[in-house]
Structure formats: C-alpha cells, structure tokens
C-alpha cells in the first residue's frame, strides 16, 4: 500500500528515552531516533531484544514521557505536556495492539464491553442500541460472530483473542495503530490469519501501522518501509526493497543473514554473518544521518559511509 500523501501522519525527530535507575546509572533505551509514518502505510521496526523497539512504540503513544525529541502526530506536537484536546486526539486517533492477548484483555469483562470501552470513555454513542450495533459490526469485521460479545476472554482461542485486541483498537477509527509484537505469541497458522486481517483492515480503513516485531520475514511481508534498531539507535531505514536488497550497515547485513529460510538444501550450507558491536570498532554515538538514495538512510560516520556505500 503506497503512501497516499506527502505530509507525514507521524513524525518522530531525535527521540530519546532514558530511564534513570539510580543516581549513577541511567538506561538509555532510545538514542536520537527519527522517522516518519505516512497515512495508510506500514512502518516496520526490527531489532533484537533490548534494542528499544517496544520503547519507541510506547513513547509514541505516550505511555512514557520522552526525555528529549519531538513527536508530531497529525500536525500537533505531542511530546511535551499534553493539553486536554491533544490527549483526546492521541487517545482516539492512535491505538495499540499488544503482544499477549491473554494479558492485555481484562479477564473479568465481557468482550463486548472490552471492545466498547473506548466508546464509553469518549461518550461517542448516543444509546445502547448504537453501541451494540457498532460493536457487532466490528466483531464481524475481525472475523468473530456478534454473539461473541457476550463471552469472556478465556472462552476464546489465542487467535480469536488477538482479533478482540484488534477490534478494540479499531473501534475508535484510529489513523495509526501501534502493533507491538502482536503476532509473536500466536501459532504459525494463526499468525497468517491475523496478518491477512490486518492488511484487509488497512485496505478498507486506510489506517497506518507501526509494526514492531523481531520476525524479519513477516516484517518484510507486511511493511512498506522498515527501520533497523540496535542498542537504541536507528541504524538504517528505507523501503523494504532498499533494506532487503541493498543493506548497507554491517548490522543489517548480519541480521538479514541470520533469517533462516525454509529451504533445507540452501539453509544447511549457509552460515550466518556474525556481528559484534564491541569488536567492530563502530561507535553508534559518533554516527550521523547519511542518505544512501531514495528514502534509504543509514547512521554512520563519514569515513564508515565511504567504506560501506
């Protein structure tokens, strides 16, 4: 799904997210990350655990207060203290789907009430009839039956529960959905169902996704553009073809080489490239943004850029 507009829906500039542990020690989870998401596109964030990909998602939706940097969403700066109208915009236009549907759905509430919670909080329905109508329409859209509204989360299978999580995110008609590892807890055959559903929804509603995952082949399949994170730095970003066909940064190369391919003869002969940050002599902090071409950027020093590109 190509970008439909030149004005980014979400613009993140120089985002830093630090977590002070005590007086002496601060975890620097995200270090100066910048990227944009255009309306209706999917931006994939990949990286190993601890690279800061989930933190970025949570900072963007303001579960954390960013240490520094700017987050502009729908033309409004949402990185500082939020006004009431900004909060309203953020809570309706941006939604999140979490990794583990069992942990993110309240076990004591019926699915219908879980899905309608946003409507209730923002007083978006005039009556019980309209509320029920909207919930049922949405459940149908994500492949569940209207009578499922009366059930509790534990009565569903893992894939169905994730559909409930998607329905809950969709009820506010958001412009951006942050999907944080939303398929990694599901079985392979169910993952494909959920990914298909997410693509169908994007086609119908034009919502944009920030798709956070560590499964690179799935990220490649669903994303239009991709950002590669390591140790809190965004090392390389570009369209999926730019990243997968012409990776420039050695970390991206090693990451791509590690993806196992379901092709036994090829796979048995192959060994992954190894990458050791400490031994590589690369210092991410010294790097600056370099344009490779098109929308393809990498973070490195001028000297490294000369060597790699």
């Amino acid at each position, binding site marked *: 799904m190509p970008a439909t507009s030149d004005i980014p829906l979400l613009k993140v500039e120089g985002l830093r997210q630090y977590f002070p542990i005590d007086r002496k020690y601060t975890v620097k989870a995200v270090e100066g990350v910048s990227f944009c998401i255009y309306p209706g596109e999917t931006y994939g964030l990949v990286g190993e655990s601890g690279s800061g990909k989930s933190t970025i998602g949570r900072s963007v939706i303001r579960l954390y207060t960013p240490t520094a940097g700017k987050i502009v969403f729908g033309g409004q700066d949402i990185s500082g203290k939020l006004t009431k109208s900004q909060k309203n915009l953020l809570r309706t236009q941006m939604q999140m789907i979490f990794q583990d549907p069992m942990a993110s759905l309240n076990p004591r509430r019926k699915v219908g009430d879980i899905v309608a919670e946003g409507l209730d909080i923002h007083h978006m329905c005039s009556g019980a009839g309209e509320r029920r109508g909207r919930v049922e329409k949405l459940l149908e859209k994500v492949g569940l039956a209207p009578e499922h509204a009366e059930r509790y989360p534990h009565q569903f299978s893992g894939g169905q529960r994730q559909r409930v999580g998607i329905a809950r995110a969709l009820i506010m008609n958001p412009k951006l959905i942050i999907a944080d590892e939303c398929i990694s807890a599901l079985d392979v055959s169910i993952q494909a169902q959920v990914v298909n559903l997410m693509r169908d929804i994007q086609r119908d509603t034009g919502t944009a996704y920030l798709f956070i995952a560590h499964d690179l082949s799935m990220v490649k399949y669903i994303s239009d553009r991709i950002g590669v994170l390591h140790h809190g730095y965004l090392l390389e970003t570009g369209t999926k073809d730019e990243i997968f066909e012409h990776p420039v940064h050695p970390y991206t190369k090693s990451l791509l080489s590690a*993806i196992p391919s379901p092709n036994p003869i090829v796979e048995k002969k192959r060994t992954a490239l190894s990458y050791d940050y400490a031994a590589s002599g690369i210092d991410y902090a010294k790097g600056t943004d370099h344009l490779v071409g098109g929308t393809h950027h990498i973070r490195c020093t001028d000297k490294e850029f000369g060597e790699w590109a």
Partner: protein
Amino acid sequence: MEEHDKILSVRGLDIAFRTTAGSVHAIRGIDFDLYRGETVAIVGESGSGKSVTMKAAMGILASNASVKGGTILFSYTHADGSPETVDILKKDKKWIRRHINGKRMAMIFQDPMTSLDPTMTIGRQVMEGMIWHFKVTKEEAYRRSLKLLQEVGIVDAEKRMKNYPHQLSGGMRQRVVIAIALSCNPDLLICDEPTTALDVTIQAMILELIRRIQRERGISVIYITHDLGVVAKVADYIDVMYAGRIVEKGTANEIFYDPRHPYTWGLLSAMPDLDTEDERLYTIPGSPPNLLYEKPGDAFAPRNPYALKIDDRLGPPMFRITDTHYAATWLLDRRAPKVDMPPELRARIARMKKEAGLIAGNE
C-alpha cells in the same frame, strides 16, 4: 541402515490427560525411530502433542497423564560396553532419574532463564550432574566443566563459573544450558524450542553450535519446534504432528520440496519467506481442535479445504510415498480425486528448488 544403530524407537504411543473437564486424548498413536547421529525435527502447532511425546520419552510426564499404550524403546551402552535396550514406559520415575535423565538423555528447554537455578553459580550447575551421576571429585568436575564451557563458546570460562545466571545475556545462558546438557555425555539430546526465546542473530549461532557438537560427538538430536526455518537448517528427518498424530513424515527435502498433506501445505505457505510478494498469505482456516472433544474421522478435516467425505467417518492411514516419506491423508488413496497443492506454494517450491540447484519439475 546397518551401520546406524537405532537409539530410540516409539511405537503406538497413546497418552491421555485427566482434567477436571474430562479426559484429553493428547497423543493418539505415534510411531517414530531415531538412529545414532541423526536429527529428527517434530513440527506442529501448540497443543499438537509434540512436547508431550518428548516428555514421555524422558519419563517426566505430568502426574495427571495416563499412558494407555505403546512402547518407547531406548538403546544405550553401559560403561563396560554392553548394550542395553529398555522400555521407558515400563520403568519407574526413580530408575529413569538415576539412569536416563541427564545421563543418557538430556533436554534443552525453551527459556534459559527459567531452566537455570537463579541461586546457584553457573559452575555449580554445570558440575552438579556429573558429580551426581558419575561420582567424580569436585576438582575433576571443575576441570571438565571449564572445558565444556569453552567448548560451547563461552569466553572467560573461569570467570563465568563464578557468575550467576542473571549476569549473563540470553544467548550466553542458553550456551550454559547446552553445556549442562552435555556434561554427562548423553546419547540423545532433546531440544524443546531451543531458540524461540532468543533473537535471530543469536538463534543462528546457537543452532550452529548444536550442529557442531552433534557432529563432533556423534549424538542424536530431536528438535521440537514450530519454526520451519529452524527445521530446514538442522533436520535430517521431519515429523509433522497434528492433534496428537503424525500426519506426515519424511526427509527434510521430501517435506520441504514435495509436501503431500494439506496441513503441511498450510504450514509451509503460512510462513512468508523473503520472496513472498502475494497479496494474501494462504492460511489454514479455523484453529487447532480441542482434544477434549474427540470426533470420528480425521481431526484435521474441519480445517481442511480438501477434505473428502470419508474424512468425517474414518481417519486416514499412513500412505507410503517413498521408503522414507509417508503421509496420512485420504488424498493419496488411489480412489481419491487428484488434488494439487495451492498454486502459491507450488510457485514457491519451484523457486526454492531453483535456488537449491535442483531443476524444477524434474523428480
């Protein structure tokens, strides 16, 4: 196959669990063999019974399990060289603990954080098994542990012996778990989703490590996983499980390049590879069955777009395709209509074969 000796032979394994909701028939007749030095991967979704099968082989089934039938024959040699074959299911837990677990059959679990003891140093945990099983002295155990840690690629092994698990990264922890599993020189290594909790870059390193050790020591390995990429990298033979049954078995090449069972088709095409450009992924409709409610016929039939009428009445037997390749689907019966795999998958397999240097369509 004369030069290989059979190390594990499972026949007609049948296991049910007593639960408050009723009896769950988790394993419904499983046969497979494993020869020395070979690798078998058991593939399936959660609830297909792959972990239960391996727990039965290790004699560590949950207490509400009841084995309704079958044999698990495990062959090993004593220290003096005399061979011995035992049926694990006939032995009591204590005997298995003493003679099999950790000593001749070792297991690597999914999450290295939960399988290591957070209150013990790495060194003590690696030494524990050999002191208990072989009664070696502490000094000897220390020396051997140091060598093991170096063998699994831990730098600064001497320093690491004194560390606690939380001081190590996920990949390092899994290396320690592998060292512990190898500490008593087992004949069989069972890896239950060994890399699911790890990052791709570390996953590749751990898999290559297990493969190297397997080659050097000539041990057999069973992988339990749902990740077909991992399977392609490591497996000689593959058993695809669904709802407590093996639905297709064969060599890795047969399963990946010539799958016959609709469930295998679904599994293969549900995972996009890097060249997948299709608008939609082919999916298996529905979700895995609840084994609390047994129904006659093929358990996969409700999710199978290619199901025949007979599937509702009678479960299919294993049809032979080659000497190593079998599949349990009525589609292979000579009276069945000719059904082809989904075109997306056909195209992908053709592409994979080309990449692998096999000529497409020539078998």
